[in-house]
């Protein structure tokens, strides 16, 4: 991890017009994610986490402030960033390998290179035997791994992950978390992970940022000082995990608010 800043939000504010009045989703958000760092963003529903992700990927422009990726101001979709959502967004008419190649195909990478990259990723994610299958023939966990492969295939420097594992069962989630952690480490990728799962935030990240209720602001920043960031299963058993989770619960006022 170097001190180079890969992803930065500078004084980002986002307002939406809703029912005739202006609604502030996020207010004055400053985030800087260093090269190779994994930062989690947690906060109550509707606090504007996904808005920040859309701004980072260039799909929406902030009302105020700017986002930067690799030192360049984000003014639209760009090849440095790729995102992954809770929904796998696989195309049912494409086989697994064709789905993985979707992004590189759009970006105009040569066919032989596309296939080479996709095959390498499928092997890394233990999907090589399924490259000719269609999405409906796969389990939810496998589909999400294909989505991860598609995200990595465009070789982004920054990954924006919006609750990527919240739709899979608990055991599959742990396996996927470990695969993500290992992949990020191996490829040296920078990631911003949005999650509701406090344990996921603690075990996968170098830092956790806590957002307030709307209008969303960053109200706390917690550095996770536990070794083995590439092995969340091992991290789970570390004695300090409970302390971090408790602090997050405290900051989120969990227990104080009705669910």
């Amino acid at each position, binding site marked *: 991890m170097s001190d180079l800043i890969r992803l930065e939000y500078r004084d980002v504010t986002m307002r939406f017009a809703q029912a005739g009045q202006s609604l502030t989703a996020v207010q004055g958000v400053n985030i800087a994610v260093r090269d190779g760092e994994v930062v989690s963003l947690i906060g109550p529903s509707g606090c504007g986490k996904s808005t920040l992700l*859309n701004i980072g*990927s*260039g*799909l929406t422009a902030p009302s105020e402030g700017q986002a930067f990726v690799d030192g360049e101001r984000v003014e*639209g*979709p*760009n*090849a440095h*960033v*790729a*995102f992954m*959502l809770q*929904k796998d*967004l696989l*195309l*049912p*008419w*494409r086989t697994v390998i064709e789905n993985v190649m*979707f*992004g590189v*195909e*759009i*970006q105009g990478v040569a066919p032989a290179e596309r296939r080479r990259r996709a095959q390498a990723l499928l092997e890394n994610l233990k999907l090589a035997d399924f490259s000719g299958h*269609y999405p*409906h023939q796969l389990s939810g966990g496998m589909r999400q791994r294909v989505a991860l492969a598609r995200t990595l295939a*465009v070789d982004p420097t920054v990954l924006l992950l919006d609750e990527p594992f919240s739709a899979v069962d608990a055991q599959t989630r742990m396996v996927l978390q470990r695969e993500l952690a290992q992949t990020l480490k191996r490829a040296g990728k920078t990631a911003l992970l949005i999650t509701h799962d406090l344990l996921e935030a603690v075990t996968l990240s170098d830092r956790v940022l806590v957002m307030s209720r709307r209008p969303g602001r960053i109200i706390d920043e917690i550095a996770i000082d536990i070794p083995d960031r590439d092995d969340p299963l091992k991290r789970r058993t570390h004695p300090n995990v409970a302390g971090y989770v408790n602090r997050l619960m405290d900051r989120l006022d969990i227990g104080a608010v009705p669910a």
Partner: protein
Amino acid sequence: MSDASNSSVVWRGTAVSLSLLVVFLAAWQWGPGLLGIPPFIIPPLSTVANEAVRMWHVSGLAYHTGITAAEVIAGFILGSLLGAFIGYLIGMSPTAEFALSPYILALQIAPKVAFAPLFILWMGFTVYPKILVAILIVFFPVMVNVLTAIRTVDPDLINLARAFKATRAQIFWKIEFPASLPPLFAGLRIGSTLAVVGVVVGELVGGNMGLGYLLAFGEGQANTAMVFVAIVMLTLVGGAAYLLVILIEQRVLHYLPKRAMSGF
């Protein structure tokens, strides 16, 4: 569902289906006689079969069937192409949809077969007015299905493509068009059967060609068996068109899970 129980469903289903056919044909042959229904109301199966043979040799049954089939195919293909094209065009432009939807709705509500006499006034006793009615009637289910499909593509899918810097054309060809194919085929299935309706109405209204003409001719002669033959042939033409759509659909949509595409 396991393969074993699946194949037993197919077996039993086929057996029941065939038995029903035998029962139906037997009832047609002997039912009218037993119930005292005269042959000019319901002619028995054998009479209808004899009439079909007579019409084949004397009335040019093959010729008229061929004319009707050609009109159905031409009307179906042109109507589908037009419906799909307009569906995609309107689907890509919310402004166009907003501006055109009242007229489309009005045309959709208007009974298309009522245009048949008008088209015959315009184009005479040729095959063209029949094809035109078929085009008009096939157009709507195809267009509406395509339009709805384009409207309901998951916006996150579009955003995914946009995040990869896809152009508008890439979004259409790589996402919207393939996503619209299952509903398009649902529309084509409906269209293939409606094309027959359009053609027959056109033929009934005027002209001296096609199964609709034989139908009207048989009626004029009080030849009930002839009417039955025409109805059976029309059903065969419609069935063939429908089957053709299904066969193409199964090739194009091969990626769908098998059970999502129960054939008939």
